[in-house]
């Protein structure tokens, strides 16, 4: 199954991807800016995400919150999100409102700064601080992402610091920072625009030219510090987190091949063999047979630079101690490392992934987002059509080769959450901690 992909580049450097589909009168507009928390300066953690909030606060011809209102009034949905390597903005609208969505995106790419005020920045800072309280500080295991980043990346690495940011750094962000970040990163030559759904190609290209064409190209962006890392951690990493949680939960991470590389697909299959759905190894063994875990899954971060991470995520049953949980998972990983996986397991994983890939392409918004992703990371949106083939081409031997390279002791990082109330009864963990 292939979807149509048409790619062009405006003179100002904006990469434009179109994918027509006339089955329903809706169209998705999606922009990826190649900037994320990795690009933040020291002392400004969380700024890329705070900036994402500011992009909904109006621009030269759009008043505060009008972006949301205009799209919802048009019968559309919209949002934005920030990740380590990119920030995206997206709308899905009835197809006759495509012009509006494009114009709104162009207005904020071209002329955001006239609309920025101290009051808006202060309000969004408060909103983001509340987002941090809600999703990180007041949520069990909510610190997982920032603690994991801190544990597995070296101190100077751009992926090492918190995405949502510290309260102090958020407080320090100024309007000058907004202006500088905008001028540096929110330029057409640092962005990808994807449009998927019900539109006419020629007319749409004309609109894109009219709205985005006049926006000037950016100046040189500061290069990211070196991202490359060795394929393994080189030592056993481990951190215990005593927290307000009810059950022990272990996140065990492994450095794995970067997203999009040949070996990535094998690693992604390993992740599915281990933890995708109820027939996966960890579920069958730890949840069903041994009954030591309440839940088990695995996933990859899909980082395209430096190194990716494969993470195993297992929550203990109430009667399982944190130490026991870690032993059980460790034993499964040892077993995996020793014996590898079978052809049947690879086939199960590939079949599930293929269904999920196909299902995800049903939605215009998802199509547009993936086109932007492949265009941003690899300059080639048409990779969207090669994913199923890439997975199918992976052999069991290739999978087992990655397993023997990446699942040794010296490539394991455990982030183990222990319920505060159990601290007394689990003092044995502290002793084991440095092992």
């Amino acid at each position: 199954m292939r979807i149509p992909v048409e790619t062009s580049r405006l003179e100002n450097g904006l990469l434009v991807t179109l994918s027509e589909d006339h089955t329903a009168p809706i169209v998705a507009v999606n922009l990826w800016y190649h900037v994320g928390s990795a690009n933040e300066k020291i002392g400004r953690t969380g700024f890329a995400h705070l900036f994402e909030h500011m992009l909904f606060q109006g621009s030269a011809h759009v008043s505060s919150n009008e972006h949301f209102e205009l799209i919802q009034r048009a019968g559309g949905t919209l949002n934005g999100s920030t990740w380590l390597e990119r920030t995206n903005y997206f709308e899905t609208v009835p197809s006759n409102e495509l012009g509006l969505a494009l114009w709104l995106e162009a207005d904020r790419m071209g002329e955001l700064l006239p609309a920025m005020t101290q009051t808006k920045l202060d309000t969004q800072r408060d909103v983001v601080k509340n987002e941090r309280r809600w999703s990180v500080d007041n949520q069990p295991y909510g610190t997982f992402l920032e603690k994991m980043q801190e544990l597995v990346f070296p101190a100077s690495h751009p992926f090492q610091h918190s995405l949502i940011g510290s309260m102090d750094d958020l407080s320090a962000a100024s309007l000058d920072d907004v202006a500088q970040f905008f001028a540096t990163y929110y330029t057409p030559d640092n962005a990808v625009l994807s449009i998927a759904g019900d539109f006419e190609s020629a007319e749409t290209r004309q609109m894109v030219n009219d709205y985005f064409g006049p926006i000037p190209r950016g100046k040189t962006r500061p290069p990211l510090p070196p991202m490359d890392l060795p394929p393994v951690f080189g030592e056993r990493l481990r951190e215990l987190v005593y927290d307000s949680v009810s059950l022990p939960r272990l996140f065990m991470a492994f450095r794995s091949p970067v997203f999009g590389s040949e070996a990535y697909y094998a690693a992604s299959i390993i992740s599915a063999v281990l933890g995708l759905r109820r027939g996966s190894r960890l579920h069958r063994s730890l949840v069903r047979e041994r009954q030591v875990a309440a839940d088990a899954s695995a996933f990859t971060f899909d980082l395209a630079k430096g190194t990716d991470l494969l993470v195993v995520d297992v929550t203990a049953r109430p009667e399982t101690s944190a130490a026991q949980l870690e032993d059980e998972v460790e034993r499964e990983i040892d077993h995996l490392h020793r014996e590898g996986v079978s052809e049947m397991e690879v086939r199960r994983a590939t079949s599930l992934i293929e269904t999920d890939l196909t299902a995800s392409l049903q939605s215009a918004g998802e199509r547009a987002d993936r086109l932007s992703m492949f265009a941003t990371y690899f300059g080639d949106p048409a990779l969207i059509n090669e994913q199923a083939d890439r997975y199918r081409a992976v052999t069991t031997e290739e999978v087992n080769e990655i397993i023997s390279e990446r699942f040794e002791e010296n490539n394991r990082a455990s982030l183990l959450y222990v319920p505060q109330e159990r601290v007394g009864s689990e003092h044995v963990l502290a002793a084991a901690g440095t092992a």
Partner: protein
Amino acid sequence: MVTSLRPKPGPARSYRFPQFKDETLPTGVRLITAPVTKLPLATVLVLVNAGSTNEPRGKEGVAALTAAALLEGTTRFDGAELAEKFEQLGTSLESGADWDSAFLKITVLSSKLEEATRLLGDAISSPIFPEREIERLKAERLAEILQLETEPRGLADEKFSEFLYDDESRYSTPDQGSIVSVRSLTRGDVEQFYRSNYNSGGTTVIIAGDISSENARNLVIEAFGKWPEGSSQDQPQSGKARRNRKSTHIVNKLNAPQSELRVGHVGLPRKHPDFFPTLVMNAVLGGLFGSRINLNLREAHGYTYGASSFYDWRRGPGPFVVSTAVESEVTAPALREILMEIDRIRDERISAEELSLARDYLEGVFPIRYETTAAIASALATLSIYDLNPDYYDSYRTNIHNVSEDAVLRAAKTHLHPELLQTVIVGDAATVRGSLADHSLGEVTVHDA
């Protein structure tokens, strides 16, 4: 630079909800098929009138346990084998039960649809409910309940229902059961619940995707051939409130950086004649990003990451609830703003701009909701569960469009009840309690989590 001229919309292209065929098979099973050929994919959703409101008293949680246990083994395969079979076909598979029904749902490539549907028929027609797996599923549910103690959002939802509904209403206890009820469930309870509720008369099979109605029909007749006959009846559900005056319940969470807030009262049953005006009224009040409550709490005050209100539509009267999380220090002023917004929408007519925002959004977003086979199947399930007219989706946008400012005001006056509001705060009692004294929230009590 960018042109200051806002583009005008072009002529709208028409849209119709996918056409479907609705029939009763000779076995008594209702079959709804919607051929959707965009991608080589299909969703099969089996709905059984075996939700939590059908549970005998004291057996709360048996509906969910039964639905989960269907995948734990049949006369042909044990649970692990069944999972393996489904997953070798690449099937995404789910089963569960909520208030109004139990369901099994698969999404799979159309080339694997027949085989996966036969397995599904097998799972639902000949389960063996192994004791060991039932006990395991119970333990997993108990672990989930334990997790809630430290999870403020889920805890707030659960406590809100508990404080809101009278004991006689099933809605006062979590739909998946409580610690006490789940502990007491046995394999016999599951089998008994299955026998009394899983039968052809209470079952609707929905297939949406890349298959013709005729092929879908033959497939269902074959796959669900062993389905026991029988009929089913909806249990009328009481929505009796626990209190007839407003009150506030603080569930203490020491040093919580935020207060999770739930403010509301008993709402309306899904089939209420005022469904559409109430839907539009709620969109203006708290249903949209641009709603009064969100703009007030988030954009004007920066109290929260987000605030919303909704009616939880069920067969019986589910709750109306405003839901948000605010920094602990601003708990009292945030509650004051919420109460003010509820009063304001009852006191004065909304503006023409507000009405058009809500209506245009609900009308315009309609086709965006049905992009996937799973979403289409869920929409068809709604028809079946709430016994809505077959033209419900075709007339949906007209019904929204016909709601006027006056109808919204009437809905607000009739279906919002400031004097009955129950407020639940999961937060640090020491920080919030004192500031609540003069806030007309009724009697304030403090509880442990």
